[in-house]
């Protein structure tokens, strides 16, 4: 009896251990079972997935190779992608931010150059706004096709607050400095800034470097020319930032404020700040949280020009778009190419506009009246279309390994705990490849 009890225990324990090992080793393999006639499309999981689902359905209606849409919830996307991209579970087509976000994959030889497809079907490039398409060109080779909306950075304002202080949206840097003084005199924080998130602070660097030094300086630095950061233009941009911060344009507690928890948008909406420099998503954020304000008082303008600066005042910075890239080892490159062609279809453009995204295809213009907010969509579209250069956000242009150190230095220079020389040194130390 005892013996049997012991034996059954052995079986139970052994079985449990075996099951554990099997379930562990079995974590991955199931995706292979779907067969050879599918391509997996991996995207960042959020509200825009609605459109991606529609496009996949359209594709599957006519294609013999079926597309399967996989989503990963936002915050985990990059880490998960990095983990699976060189494994058996790697997707065939995946969402990314262009620029530095795919550079490591290109360097590792994982991505399929799209140029042969473009040679066969020039529309795959010609149908997109060039300034946007170029963000996914790495070392002269195209690796991505725009697949969502563009998000340029604009200077938003509270019309009521500006009016009360007798201020117009600034056209030049001096206008902005004068507006800061007028708003301060009126007892409001001139500019709301979510410094706690750090990427809002970055936007001020991006625009001032662009206006003062032109987009070439940053490109040079990104290409590995570290002297660019120490150039006179770079120093001039830094002293302009210093001037603005020291003038009290952002108040004193901006590093404790965040955009992501509604801190800075609320300041703007409730009339406690006059301006906020933010990506185009400020508009939908305000529509959600403060619909009244978004309708009546939310204004926007392009970033002011800087006198004597080298950058064109029509230049734009921000998130150029998101992109689909194709993995080199996909079994169905042709099907993937067919799938990418849907990214400039009328159906795609209409569906994106309906959820408030602004696609960057040449046929977008014809549908702008159908956008969620036509006036704002037109303003952005014209701005992006006319832009001689569209600077991809620095944190996305640089490789991921640079982001943390970059944020730290930006924040420290901005709040005055790091001086100009130390900042230049810190930027020079960032890895560029």
């Amino acid at each position, binding site marked *: 009896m005892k013996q049997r009890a012991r034996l059954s225990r052995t079986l139970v*324990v052994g079985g449990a251990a075996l099951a554990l090992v099997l379930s562990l080793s079995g974590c991955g393999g199931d995706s292979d079972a779907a067969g050879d006639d599918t391509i997996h499309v991996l995207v960042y999981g959020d509200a825009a997935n609605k459109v991606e689902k529609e496009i996949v359905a359209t594709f599957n209606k006519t294609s013999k190779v079926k597309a399967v849409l996989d989503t990963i919830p936002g915050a985990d996307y990059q880490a998960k992608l990095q983990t699976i991209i060189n494994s058996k579970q790697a997707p065939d087509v995946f969402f990314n931010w262009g620029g530095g976000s795919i550079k490591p994959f290109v360097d590792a030889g994982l991505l399929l150059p799209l140029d042969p497809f473009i040679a066969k079907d020039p529309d795959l490039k010609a149908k997109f706004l060039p300034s946007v398409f170029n963000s996914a060109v790495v070392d002269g080779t195209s690796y991505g096709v725009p697949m969502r909306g563009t998000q340029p950075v604009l200077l938003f304002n509270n019309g009521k607050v500006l009016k009360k202080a007798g201020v117009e949206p600034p056209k030049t840097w001096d206008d902005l400095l004068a507006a800061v003084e007028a708003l301060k005199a009126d007892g409001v924080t001139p500019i709301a800034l979510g410094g706690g998130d750090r990427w809002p602070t970055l936007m001020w660097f991006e625009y001032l470097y662009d206006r003062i030094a032109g987009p070439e300086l940053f490109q040079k630095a990104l290409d590995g020319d570290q002297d660019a950061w120490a150039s006179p233009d770079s120093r001039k941009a830094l002293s302009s930032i210093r001037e603005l911060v020291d003038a009290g344009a952002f108040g004193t507690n*901006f590093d404790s404020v965040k955009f992501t928890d509604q801190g800075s948008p609320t300041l703007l909406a409730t009339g406690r700040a006059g301006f906020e420099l933010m990506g185009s998503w400020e508009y939908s954020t305000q529509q959600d949280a403060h619909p009244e304000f978004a309708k009546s008082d939310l204004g926007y303008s392009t970033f002011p020009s800087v006198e004597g600066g080298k950058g064109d005042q029509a230049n734009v910075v921000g998130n150029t778009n998101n992109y689909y890239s194709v993995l080199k080892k996909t079994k169905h490159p042709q099907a993937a190419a067919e799938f990418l062609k849907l990214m400039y279809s009328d159906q795609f453009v209409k569906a994106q506009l309906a959820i408030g995204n602004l696609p960057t295809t040449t046929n977008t213009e014809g549908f702008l009246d159908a956008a969620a907010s036509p006036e704002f969509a037109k303003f952005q579209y014209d701005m992006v279309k006319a832009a001689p250069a569209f600077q991809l956000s620095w944190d996305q242009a640089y490789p*991921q390994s640079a982001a943390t150190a970059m944020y730290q230095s930006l924040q420290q220079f901005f709040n005055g705990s790091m001086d100009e020389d130390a900042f230049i040194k810190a930027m020079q130390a960032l890895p560029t490849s």
Partner: protein
Amino acid sequence: MTRTATPSADGETVEKPGSSGIGAGRPGFLWAAPAAVFFGLFAIVPLIMVAVLSFASWDGLSDPEFAGLDNWRRLLDDPVMIKSLWLSVLLTVLGVAVQTPLSILLGVWAAGHQRNRAVLSAIYFVPMLLSVAAVSVLWRAVLDPNLGVPAQATWLFGDGNLFGTQATAIGVLVFVSTWQFTPLHTLIYQGAARAVPQVLYQAAQVDGAGTVRQFFHITLPQLRNSIITSMILMVVGGLTTFDTVLILTQGGPGSDTTISAYYMYQKAFKSFDYGAASTIALLLVLVSTVISLIVVRLSGYDRMRSTMEGL
């Protein structure tokens, strides 16, 4: 199945009469197998892999390349790394220094059997039931300089730039962990204080000792073992703090609250520099081992004496 082994009064497993045979007595390795397999798979194997990776350069894409001592050299030259170790120690020391007296006083007070104490301590234990992440998000919102408490109490908070300077950001981190974890330690002390034999207090009363003297000469010495237990928990908790930093400060301003555990996370999952991250991880294991050895040695945890001697 027939389980005939029953624990006897002195805690040892003995067989009931009539059940002789194989398998009696101490359980074999098989009993420990599930736990051992689990521990091996999820603790020992990763630890070995981390040790190997700390000598490699790996971005998670291409194959790891042997890099010798490169990671170690880079980290020892990295001012943020050195700073992060000091910050970890500072946060731990501040945590222990603030929480220990608070939780001893609260625990001893809550040990009383009066009804109001029972009700108040029940309320006071609520933070312990909340997740660290939820608590951190909550305090981030409460401490918003324009929309939270600081805006209403400018006499105390000034411009409310709590997350903008190193001193205040560390203050917030210590405060939030204290708010969350003091109840746990209070619970430990409450239990321990109730276990102090009443006869000691009665004797002290006969000798004419007041409440304060009783506290310092009876309660505190009797709590010695609990204090050690609680402090070890605090040290371990302090050195492994991560979630509060991630949600409250993201290591900022600049790198002013980037503690080692958070720096490791940044290296691994923001910069995808798994070699450097593994090196930090291994360094943390080494430092924590040394610290816990010191604590055990200093506190006499390894030869803990009973507080019941002479009773």
